[in-house]
């Protein structure tokens, strides 16, 4: 086995045992943070499916919010189980993605313009949620109707450990999908498209089909992430789940980690969440705004000084250290 | 006047020029010919500072150009008329010429330079207020040349001036370049139109896959031989 695999297996074992490790009074809090990391890493991974091919979306908040609100509204109004609600949410989001992606691809809206179009889509969804305040709760948000007792059908559990394992599985599933896309034909095609669309089309790559496919996949996975988040937090709000703020946060985390590697989105998400939590704990209710100020400042510094992302830069460093070692062993 | 010794340059991991050595004397006209993709444009860009040379020396009138940015190179008296003309399409012809005289020394002599350019290319005077993008291909090439002259250069780099022009216009353009030359400018020209350009210049270099393959006086070089060589690989 390669050393990478050993480390991976060990890490996975620790994560699987996470909830039973002794953590004193911190257990609930640690689990809470880890769940957030898993869910947002999954969402970041979904974003990077598009981002790495040059489709920089600033509107993933739209997909996230659509997923979260759909499942919450269906449960609150009709008592539809989130399992089915989630399917409906993913389907709806795919349709939205299709409606956006098809013309974008057809009319070659790329680069900055693609980012701005998706940003507009994110704003539209956020504003629609606020405008339809009669049944969405508007900017005050909406609580998930509590089920009287733990229920698999309602996807509601009092014990955080259930959510912990569920989100761990979700995260692993996200990694698996990422890996499959990375190894597929689609990747070669998408990379060619990202480089030069006209050239890709000229060698027979169906540009529109690939772009739509990857966008729909990315969007529906994001919606699933929104469903998971809504079920866990049991409260949805247009400003935290839709709009430009959350979209930017997703992109930040991914770019910070490095969007071209399997674990990049996870590293970036873990770091931004840990940082956010740390600042929140340090400042508490004092100096309101200070935590976010430092967060913003650090983001700027990271982007300037680690343009390849943390994971990417780290790997470069490790490769740099490993190379002389390998040379030495080769000489022996 | 201009001397390149052992210049190597490229893009990223790709090397487009290998160990290029080349000389242009004051008052000379020199051509660089070679098939598509042989590195001619890269050579011009290295001289004008748009691409940094990795190794080698670039000396212009005794000053090293190594590490100079494009906007500094112009001040030394080198004007680069880039491939595809690259005029400012939404600026008027007059404003294009004004921009040509951007550097301070040239700006002082603006009126005089413009009068000279208009004498050389009267059509530009007629079109002074039109957007440059509305000119015909030949007129745009004249504008690009005129704009370069506005910087009061000593050496003019011309990258494929005849590109995209109808054959009749090509002949006229070469005639104009000849007149520019007679005004005392030194010229380094890159061309695919080997037959024409050899009539214009004193010496020529043949570039192939990033290396200088041949060098000689234009008159002495057998035209047929040169044409054949230049188009190997086309």
């Amino acid at each position: 086995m390669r050393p990478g695999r050993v480390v991976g297996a060990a890490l996975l074992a620790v994560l699987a045992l996470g909830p039973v490790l002794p953590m004193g009074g911190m257990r609930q809090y640690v689990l809470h943070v880890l769940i957030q990391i898993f869910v947002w890493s999954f969402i970041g991974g979904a974003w990077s499916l598009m981002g790495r091919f040059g489709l920089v979306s600033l509107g993933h908040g739209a997909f996230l919010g659509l997923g979260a609100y759909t499942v919450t509204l269906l449960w609150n109004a009709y008592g539809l189980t989130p399992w089915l609600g989630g399917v409906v949410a993913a389907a709806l989001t795919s349709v939205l993605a299709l409606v956006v992606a098809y013309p974008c691809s057809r009319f070659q809206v790329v680069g900055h313009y693609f980012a701005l179009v998706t940003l507009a889509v994110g704003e539209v969804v956020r504003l629609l949620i606020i405008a339809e305040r009669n049944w969405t709760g508007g900017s005050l948000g909406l609580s998930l109707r509590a089920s009287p007792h733990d229920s698999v059908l309602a996807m509601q559990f009092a014990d955080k450990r259930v959510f912990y394992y569920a989100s761990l599985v979700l995260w692993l599933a996200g990694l698996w999908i990422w890996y499959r896309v990375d190894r597929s034909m689609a990747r070669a095609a998408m990379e060619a498209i990202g480089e030069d669309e006209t050239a890709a089309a000229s060698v027979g790559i169906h540009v529109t089909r690939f772009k739509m496919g990857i966008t729909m996949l990315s969007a529906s996975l994001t919606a699933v992430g929104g469903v998971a988040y809504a079920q866990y937090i049991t409260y949805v709000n247009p400003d935290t789940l839709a709009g430009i703020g959350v979209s930017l946060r997703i992109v930040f985390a991914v770019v910070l980690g490095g969007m071209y590697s399997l674990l990049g989105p996870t590293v970036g998400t873990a770091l931004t969440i840990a940082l956010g939590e740390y600042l929140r704990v340090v400042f508490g209710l004092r100096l309101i705004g200070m935590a976010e100020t430092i967060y913003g400042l650090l983001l700027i510094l990271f982007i300037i000084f680690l343009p390849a992302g943390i994971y990417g830069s780290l790997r470069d460093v490790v490769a740099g250290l490993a190379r002389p070692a390998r040379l030495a062993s080769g000489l022996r | 006047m201009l001397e390149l010794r052992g210049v190597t340059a490229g893009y990223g991991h790709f090397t487009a020029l290998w160990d290029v050595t080349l000389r242009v004397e004051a008052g000379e006209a020199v051509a660089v010919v070679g098939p598509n993709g042989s590195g001619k444009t890269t050579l011009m860009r290295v001289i004008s500072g748009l691409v940094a040379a990795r190794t080698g020396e670039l000396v212009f009138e005794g000053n090293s150009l190594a590490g100079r940015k494009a906007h500094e190179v112009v001040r030394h008296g080198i004007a680069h008329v880039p491939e595809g003309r690259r005029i400012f399409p939404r600026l008027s012809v007059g404003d294009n010429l004004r921009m040509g005289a951007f550097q301070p020394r040239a700006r002082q002599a603006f009126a005089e330079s413009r009068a000279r350019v208009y004498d050389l290319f009267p059509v530009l005077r007629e079109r002074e207020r039109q957007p440059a993008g509305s000119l015909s291909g030949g007129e745009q090439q004249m504008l690009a040349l005129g704009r370069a002259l506005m910087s009061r250069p000593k050496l003019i780099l011309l990258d494929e001036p005849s590109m995209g022009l109808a054959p009749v216009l090509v002949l006229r353009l070469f005639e104009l370049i000849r007149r520019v030359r007679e005004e005392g400018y030194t010229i380094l020209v890159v061309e695919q139109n080997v037959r024409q350009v050899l009539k214009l210049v004193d010496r020529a270099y043949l570039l192939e896959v990033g290396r200088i393959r041949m060098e000689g006086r234009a008159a002495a070089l057998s035209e047929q031989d040169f044409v054949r060589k230049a188009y190997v690989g086309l």
Partner: protein
Amino acid sequence: MIDPIFLLEAAVNGILLSGVLALLALGLNLIFGVVDIVWIAYVDLVMVCMYLVYFLVMIYGWPLWLAGLASVALGALLGLGVHLLIITPILGSAPVNQLLATGGLLFFLQSFATFLWTTDHRTVRLALPILEVGGMFLSFVRLIAFAISLLAMIGLWVFLRRTYIGTAIRAVSQDREAMALMGADPQRVYLVTSAVGGAMAGVAGALLIIQYSVHPFFGAAFGPLTFMICVLGGLGNMVGAFVASVVMSEIISIGGVVISTEMGYVIAFVVFIVMMFVRPGGLLVRRG
């Protein structure tokens, strides 16, 4: 049925709003066109300038016109600062990184404003009359703000058309490399552009604080709209920016009266998305 006079009033208010939006879109457009980077935090700079005018006028008792000039100066300084500190190091980076660096600035400015000035809404109230014209109520303040934004736009136009450096800025936006061959140091042109763009934000800030209240999230409310108008106007097209601004302001203003404020914005954004498909070069430019 809505009284037609309300619609007319909304339409007039839409036009009045369009002035300052056009100004902002032009400032952003200038920077985007020349430096090729979208300043996601552009309207957050406006927010900072609004606070400046608020404090100078309400706390320190400066006359409004002087505070307005200070706002323009601050805007220009902020523009220079953003370019030197944030943009210059990432000029060669991937477009995502460029978006994110100014996005980080957005987070920073929003939260720092929250930290310094809390989330209270603040306004500079002017004792100027409300005019009644044919049954419509029009704010004199807005009329003045509109007039000044028109003047600022004309000023920008003259700067870009009639001055040497202004022409150079337009030239760089058309062909950066060719302009370097003319002897222009791109970095210096960028700096001038960023200062001018920042100054536009300063003008807009002074004009906005007398009409709307400022709070740390002001940029979030006006930012997306500004990007859309900027793009709809078409790069480097001043008339286009104005037309786009009028169209978007009218949709928002009339939509706000007929349906609801949010739906007004929704319709405006949908129009933007659709226009991106049919007129990607801007409202006034045919696809081609």
